[in-house]
Structure formats: C-alpha cells, structure tokens
C-alpha cells in the first residue's frame, strides 16, 4: 500500500520544506506554485540574517533536492481552483496556466530570450530591470525552462513575430497552449502561500509613489544581490549615481493603528540591520541611518547581530519619529524627524529604503475564504495559538507567513510541523499502489559486474542544438576523443538529455560493452541525476558516469573564441575520461535501523513531539527527570493569545499517558547514550531505586527546556514582594494575588540583553503585557507600570500591546546604562527610574515588583551535548545544524531539537517546533532502511596512524579513531561526503569515493598532458 498524496500550496521555502519532509516520510506530494519557478521570496533575497549567509547558496540545493525527489510532483505556473471533500479525502482542482512552452522539450538554453524583441519590466527583480516577453523567471530557475508572457507576446496577441519558435532548435514553443485543469485526490493540504510585501498605497506617505529615490526593502535587496540588475552595486534609481548616505525607515506601514496592517511584521528590524551591514560591506564609507520605534531583535543570535551593527561606524540607529519626507531638485531626499527630546532634526539622503512589512496576498486570503478556511482581520489564516499549524478547515494546514509575519527559520519550522500533521492524514488514508504512478517505477536493477573488465569508456558529446555546437567544433572534438586512452567509443549527439539521447547511451553501453561513460554537455548540478539514471537503465552502476560541463562553463562563456573554446572542451573531455578510468562502482548501502524514538524532556515540547511520533505509529520513549510531566508549562497561566494553558496541558498529558505507542519514564535520568542514527542505545536510571533500563531507538529529540535566570538583581529572592513573571502567573492562576496590592511594577529584560547574556528572552514582553491585561481586566483600579527597554510584542502580539495601553498600563522606557534602582521600603518596594521624556528621576513605591527574568540554558546541556555529540552555542543553548534552514536538525544525523533547549520562545512556537522535530524524526523512522551516501569517505587502515586529525575536523561526527584497532573508521550513515577528513590526512589514509586523490590527479594530469616536464636528466650529476 502507498500513502495517499498530500498537496502543498506554494513553492517558497516553506512549501519546499514541507514537500521535502513529506516526501522523506514516504508520502507522495503535489507541489503547486503559481509563479513559473520555485523559490518564492527567499530566492529574491541577497543575504540572510543573522549569519549573512548567501540566500541562493543555501536555498538552491534545497530546491533541487525537492524538485528531483521521486515522490514530489511539481506544478509550476499553476493555481488551486477548488478544494472539495473532507479531511483524508479531498479533491483538489488545479489550473495550469499556459506557458506556451513545452516543459519537457525546453532545455533552458535561452536562445529564444536573446531573440525576443519585446522588453518588459522584470517582476523578479522588482521591476528594476527589464526582461523579454519570453523569459526565465530567474537565472537559476527550477524548473530551468522559459515562459512566454502572453500579455506582451507579439505572436500571441498580434500573430506576428514568432522569433522565439524560429530560434528554438527543439520546437519547444507552442503558441496554442491552453490552460489545463486537473483534479488531484489528496489526503490533506498545506497552505504555504507566502506573502506580499507592502507597496504602493500602504507606503505612499513615505513618498514611495512620488520620489524615485525612495524604494522598498525588497527592491533594495535586488540592488544588493550580486545576481541582481546592478550586480550588487548600490546606486540611486533616479540617475544611477553611487548612493553613500542612506536612510532605512523601519515599520514602513507596520504597527500603524490607522491602517489594516496594524501589526509588527517581525522581520523588518532584522533585515534592515542586515541590509545596513551588507551595504557597509559594499560601500566602506557609507553613512547609514536607521529610523526605528523599537528594535525587535528577538530571535536566536539576533541581539548580537544588532550589537554588531550598532558598533559599526557609519551605521546609526535613530529612535526619531519621522515628521516629513521631501525631495529636492537633485532628487536627494530630505527627512525631518523629531528626536527623543522633540527637537526637529533634518537630514538629506541619496537613497531612502522603506522597511516594508509582510501581508498575505489578497488573492490567497480570498481563496482561503472561498475554501472555507477562516482568516483573521488582517487576512492571515486564523490559527489557534497552541495549535498554530491547523486551520479552521479539518485536514488543511498552514505554515509560513500565511499564519502571521515570521522569518525564514520559523517558516521552515512551521513547514516541517505542518508536514507531519498533514502526513498523519496520509498515513491514515493509504491507497493501492497501482493508483499511483510515481511510486511504481521504483524497482531496483542488478548492476553489471565491471570490476574485472578492461576499462572501456564511452564519450558522448552533446551539441545542445547550437548551444554547444554553435561554438565548439563538436565533430572534431569527438574525433579526437576517440583517440584518447581507454576510450572505446565517442559520439556526437544533438540533444543528449532528450529521451532519444538517453536511450542512445543505454544502447551503446549494451552494444559496445562500455563500462565507463563520459557525458560532455551541460552542468552536472542539474543533469547528473538524469544521466545517472540513463546509465542505470543499461545495467551499469550510475557512479561510473562522469559529466563534464562544456556548455555553461565553455560554449556559453567563450562565444567569440571558438577555437579556444573547442580546445577547452577537448581538454575537459580528456580530464573527464581520465577521471572515468579510475572511478569505481559505488553503492548506497542499506543500513538496518530501529524504529523507536527517544524524546528527552517531558515538557510541552517533549510531549508534543513524542505524541506526534507515537500517533504516526512509532514506538516512543519519553524521558523526564522530574516526577511529573509538563515542565514549565505547569506554572503558566496564559498562552500568548491570553487563553488559559491548564486545559491544553491537561488534555495533552492525558493523550500522552493513554497512547499505547508511548512509554513515559518520569523520574528517570540518563546514564549513558551510545550509538548513532538508527541505532541508539540509552541506559536510564530510575531516580527512586537506581534501577536501570536499557532501551534502543533510531532517533533522539532533545527537548530539555530551559530555566529562569537565578539573579540577585532588583532584590530578587530577597524580598517576598519581588517575584518573577512566572511566579506571578502561578499566583494569578491559583487566585492568590493579595487583595491589598494596589500597585504593580514590572521590570523587563532582567538579565537579558546585557553582557554575558547577549540575547533577548523573546517572550517576556508579550508575557508581561498579557499578565497586565489579565490583571487590569479584573482589577481596573490597580496601577501597573512596565519598565522596559524596548517592547518586543512582535507579529500579531502587537495587538496586545495596543490593548494594554488602552487599558491604562503605563509603559516607561529605561536605558540599560540607567537601570531602575530598587530598595526596600517597609512593606513596599521603592523603585526609582528616569522619566524618558522629562529626564526627571522619579521614585515610586509599589506593592509588587515583577521581574521578567532572562531565560537561560539548562546546566545539564553540557553533559547531554557531549553524550549526543551535538554542539552548544555561546549561550549554552543547543546549536542547530543551520540557523536558517535546518532549525530543528543537528549536524549529526538522527538527533533533533525543539523548544526552549534551542532558545527562548513561547509555548505556541514550541508546539510548532516540536511538530517539526517530530516530522524530521519521522522522516528517518518511516524509511525501510537508512541509505548511506554513495560518495563517502573510506579509510585504508594500512596507512592510518590513528592521529585523530580527521576526527577533529568532521562536522558530522562521522569519522572516529578506533584505538583498539589503531585506525580511523567512517560511519557511512553519518558521512556527508565533504572530504574535509581527506585533505587533513597526511598519510592519505582517507579517501573520498568519487573524488579520490587518484581521480583528481588523473584528471589534472590529463588536463595538462600537453605539458611534459623535463624530467629526463642526468646521472645525479649537476654542474653549476
């Protein structure tokens, strides 16, 4: 039986992640994207915060993994029309817009684009650049095909031109294409439809519509991008001159009570900081002013990033309120603003960048309404705080910005989380194999045994129509290739990637008994899987095929130098043939695994993950060191949306305890952990009677939570009237708030955002605001003042902040250099602070002082990190594999991360992340076997002297020295094939299959075979 497919709507990073996760769980996926290529907004970004990672670099491999996954069927340029049926049994109607191009024939060579006479504004580059009527959505588009813009195409509109068809060798252009409607049977649906950036009227008051040199941040992103229209050069749109003085206006359109975008867009502070840092990298002497209300750097690693920008000369943060924006005749923009002391400040700028916020696209909101999915007043999908991935319609899930503004890692977390929930529906609704085409062509072939054969290489040189043959003299190259050592056969093919071409390769392999194949065509990055399959079909091990790139890296880039390009092509073929000689049969090994999961930590995060995995049908062990489950949530009063936590928690505990697949070990500690992905062995010890239990499992989820800071600041733990927010909630929950209390003071950022703990604890602002509202609603006469540094009620929580102010809560800002002073005053607490506007020192007595204590890492993290071989960050929280795109994974396979152990976050976010961790874990568990990579390191123990250098450099803990055998050993399950261990091994005892030293040296030796050194010398005698 096969799993019923799931549909993912949206091909941005969230959709791609959800689709990949589902496919990894063995579930067929239909990925629907409305634009002509995958990638979404992230593909338009230059760099990402807080690591300045190159966006394309990290996204592109993910997209190609997803697109090439055998269980993912991608529909681009396609929209969802209708969704009928109920959860587990939907019929989705999709409509594919006509591209006027046959996707199967188009090679993406772009000859048509060059010859198209119509120029239009480029949507991908935010209209900064122009493109043709036939276009590629972006240079690295996946799928790599062109699209005709019917609105502007002369042939389609007026019946004249046809130049694109004329210039297409493959006749891939079809002007008569019609929209295609299709019905898909799916078990569940994930909405990952992304967002629109604010533009037009929303930001018109900033002069966006009137002044050329006022642009949005997304437009600016294209300016910064090396692949953007200016090639990464920052210029003024009005005249193309260098921009040196630049203003960034935060909250352009966000947090505006007059508009329907009265929420915080969560990401603008950070991306503005990022853009300022990148701008400084581009222009050393740039002068950048960032106008902001609050800096909301609440995410993991954000505060340090903010501090770094703040410390950079030329990046100035200004908490000024904008009064007016005008331009002068030189198109310079004059900004007048009011500073903290209400002085009017004027500044002139070359360029003004509006940090525009995120909103759901109108069409998507409309569609959701039409499909009976509830949306909130801003048009986002309406989801529950503690069930943040499920929409109001059963079986329909949502992730990414469609549920509210958020950054990339959170979108990725939600995507993985939504995937496992949608996947659960697919697990429950299996269908017959025969109904599904994709699952059927999975049969494995036996490969021909070639190791005892003489090397017989077949060289296939692709013309790629005229793409290669128009520049490179392919016939002569092919002729010369026949003369190369070990080459048995060489042939020119017009289109090697066409099915004819692929069949030809298979045919020649059988005919001539070829056992090594060299394909000289386009880039292996996109076409290697295709040709490997072609070789595989002929019964040859796919790794005996070597590709060399004579198009993207030769004919396309040396068009005017045909002779030299030909010479280069021949050299490259020579190199590939030489490498082919020494390649070996490689196999992805199947490794047995144990289908159980370990979840460490019995808080809400741990319980959610454990329950999710158990509900998929895998045996799960939940380990908690305390006597009861629930962790910190036991103390919580309200979730961030102001609803009681208790009901939710009780329900969760009940489900956990009653699930037959789930075994709970409370009051147990971990004695030892051994093993690796698929084969973990845990030894537990009961805290009661020292009895030990030994358990086996395949994956581990770390959900060990965090703890409140222990501090003596502000009389904490010294006066009974000084309590933490968590204590306050406990009091409120049990209705123990003393009636005599008439005045409450809350101090924020106690221990957060200061030296030693350079991070924001993220949830305290919203928690304080929520608690204040709770109290105010019950005791309207009670005075509450909140002393804060910056209010970080990000996203839709901004609404709470507004409400608290409406209810009369006083918000008073203090500076970190001038913290409030707290002293005892009889029964009361005396608090002294500086009034921010009048700068007066104010002393007030309060009945209760509530401290927002920082969230800090568990002390036990150190031990656990060593046992699991996973790293911690500088704040001792666990460090994920990649802060942007792998937020729940560790570099070490099979270990996942969720909740506060990862970093401060609220309950709802922990729930989402726990689902995500469960999703990633389920991907491992649901496979029949673990498959190793084919190209992994191997150790020649005869050469190894066990010095351990390889062990030191392996990020994946995949190589270790076995001191008994005095040799390093590779754990092929964990090895990713980077080759780091190879290059540090002085004894050359480690080799990376597919890129062995022998192969690379052979390749080099062939590339330079025309240069022979003068080694013929001499009888050891040199006469100077």
């Amino acid at each position: 039986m096969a799993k019923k497919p799931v549909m993912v709507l949206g091909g941005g990073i969230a959709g791609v992640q959800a689709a990949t996760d589902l496919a990894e769980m063995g579930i067929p996926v239909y990925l629907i994207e409305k634009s002509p290529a995958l990638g979404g907004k992230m593909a338009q970004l230059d760099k990402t915060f807080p690591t300045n990672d190159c966006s394309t670099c990290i996204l592109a491999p993910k997209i190609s993994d997803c697109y090439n996954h055998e269980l993912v069927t991608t529909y681009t340029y396609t929209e969802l029309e209708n969704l009928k049926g109920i959860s587990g049994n939907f019929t989705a109607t999709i409509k594919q817009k006509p591209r006027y191009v046959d996707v199967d024939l188009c090679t993406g060579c772009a000859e048509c684009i060059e010859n198209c006479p119509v120029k239009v504004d480029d949507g991908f580059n935010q209209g900064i650049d122009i493109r043709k009527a036939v276009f590629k959505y972006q240079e690295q588009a996946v799928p790599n095909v062109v699209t005709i813009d019917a609105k502007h195409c002369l042939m389609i509109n007026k019946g004249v031109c046809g130049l694109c068809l004329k210039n297409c060798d493959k006749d891939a252009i079809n002007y008569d294409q019609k929209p295609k409607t299709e019905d898909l049977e799916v078990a569940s649906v994930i909405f990952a439809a992304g967002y629109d950036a604010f533009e037009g009227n929303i930001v018109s008051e900033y002069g966006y519509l009137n002044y050329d040199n006022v642009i949005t941040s997304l437009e600016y992103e294209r300016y910064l991008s090396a692949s953007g229209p200016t090639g990464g050069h920052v210029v003024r749109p009005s005249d193309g001159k260098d921009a040196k003085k630049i203003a960034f206006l935060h909250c352009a359109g966000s947090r505006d009570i007059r508009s329907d975008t009265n929420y915080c867009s969560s990401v603008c502070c950070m991306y503005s900081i990022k853009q300022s840092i990148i701008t400084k990298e581009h222009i050393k002497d740039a002068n950048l002013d960032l106008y902001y209300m609050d800096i909301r750097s609440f995410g993991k690693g954000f505060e340090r990033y903010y501090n770094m920008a703040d410390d950079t000369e030329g990046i100035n943060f200004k908490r000024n309120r904008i009064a007016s924006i005008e331009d002068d005749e030189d198109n310079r923009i004059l900004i007048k603003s009011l500073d903290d002391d209400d002085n009017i400040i004027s500044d002139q700028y070359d360029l003004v960048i509006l940090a525009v916020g995120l909103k759901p696209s109108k069409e998507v909101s409309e569609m959701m309404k039409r499909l009976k999915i509830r949306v909130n007043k801003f048009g986002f999908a309406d989801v529950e705080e503690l069930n943040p991935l499920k929409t109001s319609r059963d079986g329909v899930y949502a992730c990414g910005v469609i549920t509210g503004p958020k950054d990339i890692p959170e979108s990725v977390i939600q995507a993985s989380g939504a995937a496992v929930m949608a996947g659960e529906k697919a697990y429950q609704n299996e269908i017959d194999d025969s109904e599904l085409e994709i699952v059927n062509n999975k049969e494995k072939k036996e490969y021909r045994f070639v190791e005892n054969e003489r090397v017989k290489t077949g060289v296939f040189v692709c013309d790629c129509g005229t793409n290669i043959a128009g520049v490179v003299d392919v016939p002569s190259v092919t002729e010369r290739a026949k003369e190369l050592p070990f080459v048995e056969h060489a042939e020119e093919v017009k289109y090697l990637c066409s099915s004819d071409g692929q069949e030809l390769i298979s045919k020649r392999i059988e005919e001539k008994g070829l056992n090594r194949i060299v394909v000289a065509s386009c880039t292996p990055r996109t076409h290697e899987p295709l040709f490997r399959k072609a070789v595989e079909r002929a019964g040859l091990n796919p790794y005996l095929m070597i590709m060399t790139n004579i198009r993207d890296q030769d004919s396309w880039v040396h068009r005017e130098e045909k002779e030299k390009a030909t010479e280069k092509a021949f050299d490259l073929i020579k190199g590939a043939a030489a490498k082919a000689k020494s390649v070996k049969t490689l196999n992805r090994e199947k490794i047995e695994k144990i289908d159980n999961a370990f979840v460490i930590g019995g808080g809400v995060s741990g319980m959610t993950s454990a329950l999710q995995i158990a509900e998929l049908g895998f045996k799960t062990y939940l380990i908690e060191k305390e006597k009861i489950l629930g962790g910190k949530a036991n103390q919580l009063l309200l979730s961030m949306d102001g609803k009681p936590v208790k009901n939710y928690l009780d329900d969760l505990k009940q489900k956990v305890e009653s699930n037959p697949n789930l075994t709970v070990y409370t009051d147990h500690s971990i004695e030892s952990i051994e093993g690796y992905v698929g084969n973990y062995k845990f030894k537990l010890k009961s805290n009661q009677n020292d009895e030990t239990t030994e358990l086996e499992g395949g994956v581990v989820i770390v959900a060990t939570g965090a703890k409140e800071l222990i501090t003596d600041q502000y009389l904490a733990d010294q006066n009974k009237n000084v309590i933490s927010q968590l204590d306050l909630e406990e009091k409120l929950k049990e209705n123990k708030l003393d009636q005599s209390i008439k005045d409450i003071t809350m101090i924020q950022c106690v221990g957060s955002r200061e030296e030693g703990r350079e991070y924001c604890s993220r949830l305290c602002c919203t928690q304080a605001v929520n608690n204040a509202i709770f109290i105010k609603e019950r005791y309207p006469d009670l005075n509450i003042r909140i002393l804060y540094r910056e209010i970080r009620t990000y996203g839709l929580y901004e609404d709470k902040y507004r409400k608290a102010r409406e209810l009369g809560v006083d918000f008073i800002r203090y500076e970190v250099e001038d913290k409030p002073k707290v002293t005892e005053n009889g029964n009361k607490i005396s608090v002294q602070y500086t009034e921010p506007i009048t700068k007066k020192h104010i002393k007030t007595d309060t009945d209760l002082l509530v401290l927002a204590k920082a969230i800090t890492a568990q002390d036990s993290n150190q031990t656990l990190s060593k046992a699991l071989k996973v790293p911690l960050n500088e704040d001792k929280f666990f460090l994920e594999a990649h802060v942007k795109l792998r937020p729940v994974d560790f570099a070490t396979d099979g270990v996942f991360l969720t909740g506060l152990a990862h970093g401060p976050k609220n309950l709802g976010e922990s729930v989402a992340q726990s689902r995500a961790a469960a999703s990633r874990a389920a991907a491992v568990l649901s496979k029949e076997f673990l498959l190793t990579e084919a190209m992994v390191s191997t150790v020649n123990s005869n050469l190894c002297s066990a010095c351990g250098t390889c062990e030191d450099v392996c990020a994946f803990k995949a190589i270790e020295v076995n001191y008994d055998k005095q040799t390093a050993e590779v754990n092929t399950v964990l090895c990713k094939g980077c080759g780091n261990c190879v290059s540090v091994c002085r004894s050359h005892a480690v080799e990376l299959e597919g890129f062995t030293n022998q192969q690379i040296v052979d390749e080099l030796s062939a590339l330079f075979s025309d240069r022979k050194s003068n080694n013929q010398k001499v009888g050891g005698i040199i006469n100077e």
Partner: protein
Amino acid sequence: MSNDFEPKIAAFLCTWCSYAAADLAGSSRIQYPPNIRVVRVPCTGRMDPFLLIKAFNMGADGILVSGCHPGDCHYLDGNLYARRKFVMLNELMQFAGVKKERLNFTWCSASEGKRFADVVNKAVKRVKSVGPWQGFDGKGFQSKEGELISEEL
C-alpha cells in the same frame, strides 16, 4: 615573453557555490577568457594542498581555488578549514619563489555569476602578467611533440 601567451589555469571549484556561480555566469552569458580548466570538488575542504602543488608540478601556469564564502559552506565549516590551508600554502609557495600572481584564492557564492567572471578575468590577467610557468626546475615544459613550449626565464 610573447604577448600571445595563453595561460592554462587549474581551477578548483566547490560544487555548491563557486561551480554554481560559474554555471550562472554561463546562463547569464557573461563572457570570460577560456584559460581555466575546472576541476569540480565537493567542498574546498576537500582541497588537499598537495593537489595544488601537483598542478604546478604538472605544468599549470596558475591555480584558482574558489569556494563558498565563509559561513556559507554546505558542509558547515569545510571552507573555514580550507582557508587556513590556503593561507599556509600561499605563504609557502610565495616564499619558495612562486609568484603570487599564480596563486589565486577566493570565494564566490552561487549568486555571484558576474563576480565569477570577474574573478576569472582577474586571475587570467594576473597569470598573464608573470608569463609562462617554467616548472620548478625553470626548464619549461615540452609539448607532446617534444618542442619546448616556453623559454628559459
């Protein structure tokens, strides 16, 4: 040194960033000189300095190594280990008298097609400026037919 000297440069590119940048330069049709011979490696972390020395040993006029920018490594930190090796190798080779123009180390991200072309342009220019590589023995290299490609320094 004749002006029509066309160097042959061994270019080692990591699959994930710089090889992708080279592809992007291609799909954007950005023209650059045909003097490089690309050897694809999974990661600059795979680059054993021996391979670079070997390239000179076999007659490459120069080398070009490009990987992901620090922080962008597909394998987390391979390029950061590589960076140290390259700095050490660079210092060694220059110390031994190999001209710095022959040794080109840089980073190129997958979106930097233009930059990749610039890098190649620059590398080729640099290598051209110091003339043909004469081998460690200074005797030059012979073509297959036995005729001396280059003259004594």
